[in-house]
């Protein structure tokens, strides 16, 4: 089976069980929004899928391959890119260097040049700041840089952890718009973790609602948006 399939996944942080047996499937090309309150286990889920965190049990497959237990640097080579929580850039490096980082491992240097150009077209503001250190960027620009770096690895699956964190509403809309654009243009599969439930669901195909390490509801994005019970309990409006 292709796409992303997670089965009976359990992940512990020492004595704390952050993810307690969850299963779901994201079809290729779909955008799945993962929603839940603080401490629901969303970040832990993404960290497990990208290889940063060990799972205690269960399985996860991407494009038919089992991915748990693999190292993040190898999963990147399998087309999985993780943009981690809190603007995943290296502040001490310049914008240019941060972007270059995403292409170091790739053999096809011509394509690295090409995709870098694409990224700079997508985020022109980065192009104007290439030799600036990343810590001088605004929050939104940093998020663009983080996504840009991930794209340079030519991923098939992107794991995005709260791209809207700490951004102004207008910038959030922009970022979400870009994400939506990207996946259609590049045919990406995306797992998007968000607190901003409505914005995320609006661009998502399916939604996964988590609470205390379990999935409490799944469905198409439209179903979830229109479910009044969920609104009250988890979506917060």
């Amino acid at each position: 089976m292709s796409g992303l399939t997670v089965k009976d996944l359990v992940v512990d942080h020492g004595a704390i069980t952050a993810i307690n047996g969850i299963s779901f499937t994201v079809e290729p090309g779909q955008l799945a929004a993962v929603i839940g309150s603080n401490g629901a286990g969303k970040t832990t889920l993404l960290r497990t899928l990208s290889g940063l965190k060990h799972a205690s049990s269960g399985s996860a497959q991407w494009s038919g391959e089992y991915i748990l237990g693999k190292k993040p640097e190898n999963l990147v080579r399998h087309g999985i890119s993780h943009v981690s929580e809190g603007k995943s850039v290296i502040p001490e490096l310049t914008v240019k260097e941060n972007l270059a980082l995403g292409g170091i491992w790739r053999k096809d240097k011509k394509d690295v040049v090409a995709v870098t150009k694409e990224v700079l077209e997508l985020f022109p503001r980065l192009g104007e700041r290439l030799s600036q250190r990343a810590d001088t960027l605004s929050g939104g620009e940093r998020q663009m840089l983080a996504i840009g770096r991930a794209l340079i690895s030519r991923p098939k699956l992107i794991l995005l952890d709260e791209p809207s964190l700490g951004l102004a509403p207008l910038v959030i809309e922009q970022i979400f718009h870009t994400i939506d654009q990207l996946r259609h243009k590049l045919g990406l599969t995306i797992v998007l973790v968000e607190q901003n439930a409505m914005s995320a669901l609006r661009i998502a195909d399916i939604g996964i609602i988590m609470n205390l390490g379990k999935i409490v509801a799944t469905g198409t994005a439209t179903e979830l948006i229109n479910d009044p019970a969920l609104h009250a309990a988890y979506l917060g409006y």
Partner: protein
Amino acid sequence: MQQAINALLIGISNGFIYSLMALALVLVWRSTRVINFAQAGQAILSTYIAYEIVTRTDNFILAFIGGVLAGALVGAVVEILLMRTLFKHVSDGPVAALAPVIASLGLLGLIRSVIGMVWGNDQKPFFPPVSTNGFTFGSTTVPFSRMNLLIVLGAATVMIIFTLIFQKSNLGLALRAAAFQPEIARLAGIRVGAIRTTGWIFAGAAGAVAGILISPNDAITPYSLDSLLIFGFVAAVIGGLESLIGAVVGGLTLGIGLSFILTYIGTSLIFPATFVVLALALIIRPQGLFGSKAARNA
């Protein structure tokens, strides 16, 4: 005036050596967050290997290359065998937090004992490849010799090569990324483990160059680089511990500073002076000349 120039020249020559040692410490610190006290041991081991080659072949260049390669190799071995095991077993507790520092101290002791068993603890003369007599200009002879010139040129070459690698190459980018944010580096596809080993390899080579260049002025013993370790550490602290350029500037500052103190005040003060410099560096600029974050406060 003449005296001041002499002090300056000697200071620069020594300063370059201190810089190399500082560079070695900074490279390891950045890649693994360990102050590697065994650096002195690794460097003296490389120097003994160079000594062995030079006494057998009488070819300094061959000895230099052999010693530096040995230094690089020892660096890799230490990282892979000792540091990786150490970080695998790491747990909480008062010693665990200090485990890498203590392990590096243990390694320093181990390397010295092994050297002592193989070569003996007595002084071995390391013959200089070029004259150690000062240059003569007209009627005045300055204490700066061909050997000093070789030191400056050799050290400067190593630093230029390092700078090029670090600032211009992908390997350098990977090294810096892995040093600053290992997790993000991994997510970007960088094999941080291998990169870390590379950092130790470079450090081992830098330390070896320092040891091999400083030793021809003197005889070698298993302990003869202890003071270089201290000077290198102080230089690294002056430079901010994180910064390669800082290490170079720190080394030169310390070298020149100590040289003036020795010339004008007296040799007896070299260690107290070093200590004062260290204290001043920590008080005046706790983040170092080139450090951006106050990393050293508890």
